[in-house]
């Protein structure tokens, strides 16, 4: 039967499997209708029988719907967890293989690069785990956002020059009350992405409504993939993996940080034209 295969694939017991439960709840509804019909027709008139049978059908259908929906969500979460572990372990194994083979070939450069990559992945995974477990605590302080942006751009100077890119800094200053380290992580990620994904001219703007925008003229994000951009491990199809060593977790973490600040993050993008990411910070930030 098809649901046995589905349950096996999802690694679930039969009674945890949404498809199987759907069939069971269907049978329960039918039994409820038939038994209500026979019981009420024994004791009451046709009008009562119709009302009672219809009510029994509706109640069992509604209960069945909620039961199957809840179990379906649990199964989905279970599958996502399993996929996450599978993808994370595959991503960790790649730099591990590189280090293993590079040691044999005595290639120090590759060992260094792979080591950096593993460190970044482990940090990203730990951040994701903290987000999932609600351990994402904010340590807020007052700081100048434009000054922070200048610091990040300075740190990325070598990478910017290597890419023949130019970054235009915001001309206005903006003081905010937020977790400086985490906001730095977000901005670093977005500016880094702008450079990685082909941007030669990157414009960073700030405005008095606490909106930060980072605009690039890079490869853009294909329209059919834009909905998935903030999902874990998402990488767009139009970027060859060998060109970018990202983990696919950066934007998921950025979104979590901005949402923890009660802010909003979104983007506008057109393939081959570029992307602009926007962050709107809460008034209290």
């Amino acid at each position, binding site marked *: 039967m098809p649901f046995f295969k589905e349950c096996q694939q999802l690694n679930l017991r039969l009674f945890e499997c949404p498809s199987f439960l759907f069939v069971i709840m269907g049978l329960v509804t039918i039994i409820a209708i038939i038994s209500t019909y026979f019981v009420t027709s024994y004791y009451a008139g046709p009008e009562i029988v119709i009302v009672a049978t219809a009510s029994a059908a509706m109640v069992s259908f509604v209960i069945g719907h909620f039961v199957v929906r809840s179990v379906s969500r649990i199964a989905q979460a279970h599958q996502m967890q399993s996929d996450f572990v*599978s993808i994370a372990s595959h991503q960790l194994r790649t730099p591990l293989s590189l280090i*293993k083979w590079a040691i044999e070939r005595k290639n120090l450069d590759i060992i260094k690069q792979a080591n950096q990559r593993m460190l970044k992945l482990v940090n990203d995974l730990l951040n994701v785990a903290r987000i999932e477990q609600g351990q994402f605590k904010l340590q807020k302080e007052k700081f100048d956002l434009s000054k922070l942006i200048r610091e990040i751009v300075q740190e990325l100077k070598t990478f910017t020059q290597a890419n023949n890119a130019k970054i235009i800094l915001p001309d206005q200053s903006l003081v905010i009350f937020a977790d400086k380290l985490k906001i730095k992580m977000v901005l670093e990620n977005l500016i880094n992405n702008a450079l990685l994904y082909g941007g030669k001219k990157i414009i960073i703007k700030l405005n008095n409504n606490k909106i930060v925008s980072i605009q690039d003229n890079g490869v853009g994000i294909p329209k059919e993939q834009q909905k998935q951009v903030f999902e874990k491990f998402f990488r767009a199809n139009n970027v060859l993996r*060998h060109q970018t060593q990202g983990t696919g977790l950066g934007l998921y973490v950025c979104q979590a940080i901005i949402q923890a600040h009660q802010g909003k993050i979104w983007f506008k993008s057109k393939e081959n034209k570029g992307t602009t990411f926007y962050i709107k910070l809460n008034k209290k930030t």
Partner: protein
Amino acid sequence: MKKTILLIEDEANLQKLLGEQLEEQNFTVLRALNGEIGIKKALEHRPNLILLDLILPKKNGFEVLRDLKANQATKDIPVIILTNLENASEIQKALALGATTYLVKTNYQLEEIIKKIKECALKINN
């Protein structure tokens, strides 16, 4: 005569390490960084052996394997899956699609991978 190996692997550094070692072992190495280029080169050059990663951009390894085995020109070229996916269902799927063997990169030293490739290459002779 020198044997030709087509390496379909999107990790540039892995390509470099494996490719160089294979060239030292007197193989001609063709390289492809994604599934589409991999199929194109397989049809163009008809290599003696194909090393195929599974997680690839443009076209994944399973799709590439399916296409290679469906094409008269490439269906008899032995394919060794070289991947870091260790799931039993993926291994079964690849072998069912016609892969000769399945090697998980992290489980082997480079020397051991080369040894297995040479064993497979020798079988082609016979």
